[in-house]
Every structure is written in C-alpha cells, then in structure tokens.
C-alpha cells in the first residue's frame, strides 16, 4: 500500500466498509429473536445464545432442534458441525493475526464471524504490508458492526412478539448476504472452481447427517482450488 493507514483510520475504515452488512444483520438477528421466542425459549435463553454463541446459523440450528425435542448430544453436535467452518476461518486468520498476545487472539476468536473473516482476509491479502496493529484495528471495526448489533436486534426481535409478515421473505436474507460476499472473491479461475465444487458437493452430500456433508464439500472445494492454482502455475512455467 502506498500510504500507511493509522490505527484509528483502519478502525473507521472497517466500520464504514462493514456498515452495509447491518441491512442484513438487523433483519436476520431480529428474525432469530422472533423464531426463538416463538419456539418457547425465554428472553434470557435467547439472549444468551446470541451473546455467547454469536453465530446465526448455529443458533437457528439449536432452536430448531430443541423445539423438535432432539436429543441433547445431537443438538450440540449439529450446532458445532455448522460452526466447524469457524476453525477454518481461525486457520486462515492465523498468518495475519497469529503474532498477537494470547488474550488478544481470544478476543479476536470470540468475535470471529463469516463477515469479519471474509472482509478481513480480503483486505489483508490486498494490502499485505499492513502492520499487525492496523490489521487488528480494521478487524475490530468490522466486528463492531458484525457483532454488537446482532445482540441488540435479537433483543428487539425476542421482545417484539409479533411476526414479520411472510411476504418479506426474510429466509433469503442470509443467502443474499453470503452471495454478496462471495461474488467479489470470484476473480480467478481457482476461486471459481472452488466455489462450484463447494456448491455441487454441498448439494450432493446434503443427505449426510449433522451437516458433515458441508464440511466434506468445503474440504474438496479447497483442495480443488489449490490444485487448479498449482496446475495454472505449472502451465505458465512451461
């Protein structure tokens, strides 16, 4: 990068660039609050899920399975399987944020969500010379929008007591956010190959229980992307 970013400039850049996510986090978190209280969880239970688990897809999984009276261990295993991708995000952030004190890595880990991972790894790769303090500042800028409002809107949804009209099709808020995050990543052939393998794998393996199918599909997609990258490099070298 031409000019070094100051810490506060990086923080506010993170806040600014992640602000559009609120348009999706707000309805999605509210929807969680509504669904959770409809399922019979009280306010404290619903809020604990949003504040402590801090991962929408897994929270919906818990509420859905608990209301279906699924066995305790199945609920826990399924929710953690849905969150297995967070370990991959953790691995992907390690080269960028691994050289910080253990307690700082703890705070980073607690606030690590799909959006912060996607936005931060994109920025870090684009500006590899950023200092670790600048990277952290940008990370927490994104986290401010990705995490704090999530808890607030859950409370609004849980106390609203009135369902959002079905015509709003809020079920599609999550896919649209993720698509908006994926689109800009598809700039090279290996990335496109990985995305296609991920989609095909997840659909074909959707019958595999406990969301393990998604994990297998993700593994295959990462392998396909890496192999395509190597193949392109070899072809260029010839």
């Amino acid at each position, binding site marked *: 990068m031409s000019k070094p970013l100051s810490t506060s400039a990086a923080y506010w850049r993170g806040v600014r660039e992640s602000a559009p996510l609120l348009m999706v986090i707000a309805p999605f978190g509210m929807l969680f609050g509504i669904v959770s209280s409809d399922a019979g969880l009280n306010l404290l239970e619903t809020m604990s899920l949003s504040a402590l688990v801090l991962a929408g897809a897994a929270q919906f999984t818990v509420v859905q399975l608990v209301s279906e009276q699924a066995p305790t261990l199945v609920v826990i295993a399924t929710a953690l399987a849905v969150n297995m*991708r967070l370990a991959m995000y953790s691995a992907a952030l390690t080269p960028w944020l691994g050289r910080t004190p253990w307690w700082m890595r703890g705070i980073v880990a*607690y606030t690590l969500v799909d959006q912060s991972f996607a936005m931060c790894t994109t920025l870090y790769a684009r500006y590899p010379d950023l200092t670790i303090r600048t990277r952290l500042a940008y990370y927490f800028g994104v986290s401010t929008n990705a995490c704090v409002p999530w808890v607030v809107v859950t409370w609004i949804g849980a106390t609203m007591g009135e369902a959002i009209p*079905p015509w709003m099709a809020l079920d599609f808020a999550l896919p649209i956010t993720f*698509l908006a*995050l994926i689109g800009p990543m598809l700039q090279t052939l290996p990335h496109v190959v990985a995305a296609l393998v991920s989609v095909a794998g997840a659909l074909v393996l959707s019958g595999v229980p406990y969301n393990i199918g998604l994990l297998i599909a993700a593994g295959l997609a990462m392998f396909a992307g890496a192999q395509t990258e190597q193949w392109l490099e070899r072809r260029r070298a010839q």
Partner: protein
Amino acid sequence: MTAAASIDQTKLWFIIAAVAIGTFLLRYSFLGMIGNRNLPPTVLRLLRYTAVGVLPGLIAPLVVWPQATGGQPDPARLLATVATIAVAMYTRSVIWSIVAGAAMLYSVLYITG
C-alpha cells in the same frame, strides 16, 4: 406459551453452555494453538480457498431448496441469486449486490404473487 412448558430448562442451559464453549474453542483453535509459528506453503495455498470453499456450500441448499417454499425450487429466489452474484462480481460492492438481490426477490415475488 404452551411450547415453553415442554422445553426442559436444565437440558437447554446445558446445550447453550456446550455450544458456546465448543464454538469458542473452534474459533480459537488455530489462532490459539499455532500463535507465532509459520504455516507451511501448502497449508497457506489451501487456506486461500477457505471462504470460497465454505460459503457457497453453506447457502447452496437454501437457494435451491428454500424452507419457505417447503423445499421446492422457487423462481424468485433463484433469480435473486443470479442478480446478487452478477452485481457482486461486476461491482464488488456488498451493498449494491444486496440491493440488487432484494429488488429482484421482491419484484418476482410480487409478480408471481
């Protein structure tokens, strides 16, 4: 709240605690363990494709078999997907992609009633 009575509170709090701790450990795993050590190039190459390997697969079933339509493929959601991804690839802007996707979703839902 008739449903509330059927949920075992002790069991529910055990689930909340276990999922919260387990999720934190998943998030902390590599950041916490590996810390200052450098990762080998093969691992780094694989990690470049983490996001693009997980996120499309996570939403693919929601796009193709939406729960709102009882798992039946739905033209509004499929067209919204195409609109979002096209605008996202072209503009690289999260906000415009979301606007395009939502606009397409609502117009097709409105037209098809």
